[in-house]
């Protein structure tokens, strides 16, 4: 059975400084693959690198292959092997497959369930196929990786529930308002998290963004960024009539909105719901505002609580995801095993013999006038034809010749004879 080996370092094993040193840019990946392809003891190779990990997956073709990869990394990235050797993990066989499936399914990510990783692995694989550095085994392995990652996302809650404060706020807005495209947002003050929340809301096509700021110039600048309308801070209370979501993040030391102010606003806006997101520290909005009917106020602690809960929920889902992954690993291993010469030859033989037998029986059953001796002779003849036909292909599979890739022909044989019947999904 061909061996699969994975060497890598990620956020769990390596510090950020080290990960930075080991990161490969797109161009570097192309160069690296080009060089690795030339190595005698590497048959297939695939390399991918994100800000949280660098991993090399390969099929060896000779001894000392792990050293080859390690030395290559040190040479290519120009750092001493001793500096990063301890941070590397090495997985072989099932463990390597398992790790790859975990990574692509986002179970190994810093934020479990984050959706970018699958796209990154896909892009890296595209580079590998373009450079012909991956072959039969890695191609199949990566395709299986994509399908298991999709399955995990679909069948478990791994990607559900917001795990960032700004996204949790947007999710809440969706539980208050059914159609955000008819709602307007007001951003008071500035701040990274507040602006991120506005960006999330913009991606939900909110109707209008209003930006209020003590310094009008800042309001104008921010409004330009969000295609919004700048207003002065003094107009903020009046603007509460028009908007539905308020994101507040000012540096004020006292409440900029009190309960009585909001009560008055709610009266004039005929109790249409109003959602306040207070990301400021110290808080901008009087917590008692939450007690007013049809008014909802979430501060940064409330949002953090939701995020923590959601992270817990995602972690629970990983158990289910692990089960799906283990199942996929077993299936892939079975395919790998079948790629060995003997099972493939047996399968080809069995298939041809069965066809011969069935067809002969079918014909003979309509020919009752034949004597027993005749039927025996016909049966012997059909068997002989089958054996003669199979002889050359089987000999070729056993010995495809020097420098030819065995798994490639085995895989081709399996496909020509349609031997992977129980494995129809691509």
């Amino acid at each position: 059975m061909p061996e699969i080996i994975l060497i890598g370092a990620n956020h769990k094993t390596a510090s950020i400084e080290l990960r930075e040193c080991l990161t490969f840019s797109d161009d570097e990946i192309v160069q690296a693959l080009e060089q690795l392809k030339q190595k005698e003891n590497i048959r297939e190779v695939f390399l991918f690198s994100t800000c949280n990990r660098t991993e090399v997956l390969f099929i060896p073709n000779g001894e000392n292959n792990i050293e080859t990869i390690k030395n290559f990394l040190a040479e290519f990235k120009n750092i001493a092997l001793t500096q990063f050797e301890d941070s590397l993990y090495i997985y072989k066989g099932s463990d390597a497959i398992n790790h790859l499936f975990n990574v692509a399914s986002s179970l190994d990510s810093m934020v479990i369930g984050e959706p970018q990783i699958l796209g990154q692995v896909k892009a890296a694989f595209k580079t590998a196929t373009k450079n012909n550095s991956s072959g039969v085994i890695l191609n199949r392995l990566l395709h299986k990786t994509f399908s298991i990652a999709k399955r995990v996302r679909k069948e478990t809650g791994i990607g559900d529930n917001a795990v960032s404060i700004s996204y949790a706020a947007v999710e809440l807005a969706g539980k208050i308002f059914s159609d955000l495209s008819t709602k307007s947002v007001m951003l008071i003050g500035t701040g990274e998290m507040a602006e991120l929340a506005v960006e999330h809301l913009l991606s939900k096509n909110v109707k209008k963004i209003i930006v209020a700021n003590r310094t009008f110039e800042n309001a104008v600048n921010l409004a330009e960024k969000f295609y919004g309308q700048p207003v002065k801070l003094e107009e903020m209370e009046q603007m509460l009539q028009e908007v539905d979501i308020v994101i507040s993040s000012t540096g004020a030391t006292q409440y900029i909105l009190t309960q009585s102010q909001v009560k008055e606003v709610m009266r004039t806006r005929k109790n249409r719901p109003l959602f306040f997101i207070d990301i400021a520290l110290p808080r901008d909005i009087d917590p008692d505002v939450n007690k007013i009917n049809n008014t909802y106020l979430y501060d940064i602690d409330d949002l953090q609580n939701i995020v923590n809960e959601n992270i817990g929920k995602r972690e629970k889902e990983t158990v289910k995801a692990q089960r799906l992954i283990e199942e996929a690993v077993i299936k892939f291993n079975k395919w790998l095993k079948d790629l060995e010469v003997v099972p493939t030859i047996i399968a080809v033989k069995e298939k041809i013999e069965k066809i011969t037998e069935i067809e002969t029986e079918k014909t003979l059953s309509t020919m009752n006038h034949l004597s027993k001796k005749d039927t025996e002779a016909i049966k012997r003849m059909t068997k002989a034809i089958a054996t003669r036909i199979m002889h050359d292909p089987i000999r070729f599979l056993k010995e495809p010749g020097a420098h030819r890739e065995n798994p490639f022909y085995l895989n081709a044989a399996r496909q020509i004879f349609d031997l992977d019947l129980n494995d129809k999904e691509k």
Partner: protein
Amino acid sequence: MTIQISENINMLLYFVTFLYISSMSGYILYLFKQKDKIEKTALFLMGAGFLFHFISLIIESFFAGTLPAHTMGQNLSIAALSLSGAFIFFRYRSKLKILGVFASPLTVFIMIAALVTPASPGKEITAIKSIWIVSHISLIFIGEAALALACGAGILYLIQERGIKKKKTGFFYRRLPSLDLLDYTSYLCIVTGFTMLTFGLVTGFIYAKSIWGSFWRWDPKEIWSVATWLFYAALLHFRLVSGWQGKKSAIMTIIGFAALLFTFLGVNLFIGSHHQIFTK
């Protein structure tokens, strides 16, 4: 109506009940699993139940020569039919799938009550053969079904609102849609239900005039009906004028529905009225 036919109709009604129960199971499963396929199946079962139920009502009406609303059992059966029909209608209007979790068990409950209520057959009522009384009965039942759903949407609203206010994302938070949608559906049901109720009362008064000679006779059922109607009128008024949307409106739909139930059942059981000739 011959015994043979009424037996067949009973069989049909048992089958309808079976469909309603299957639909209810589907909706309960949907509440936990949140799979759209399950909801679609449950909705289909509800639709099938409604269809066969409606067919049975037509057959019965055909043999009775009028709308069969003579006994308590028959009335309850029509109530269940109206409720399943109203649910399917609002399910398509507002896309509020989860309302089935309220509507289907209620339909099943009423349907079972209809089947176990002892019938008193052989009573011939001529009073019921008039276009006014038939419209009166149909409109009132459809209106009440819509208001029942308004109450259901109101309950779901209160659950979701409480979760968001208390900042506890529990079991229902993920399963219930936005407050907006719940409130809108409730409002839609109220407007429809109120309109039906209004026409139902008007046709009722016209019918009363035609057989008792006066529109209004201070009958307890009449008084309760008009009181309930006024309650819903007030709810709509405050909603439009003073912005009583959301929580206040939701609470009022629940109170209103309780009043409706009392008008429908309580007055007959505890007070008595001229409607009793229909529901003995």
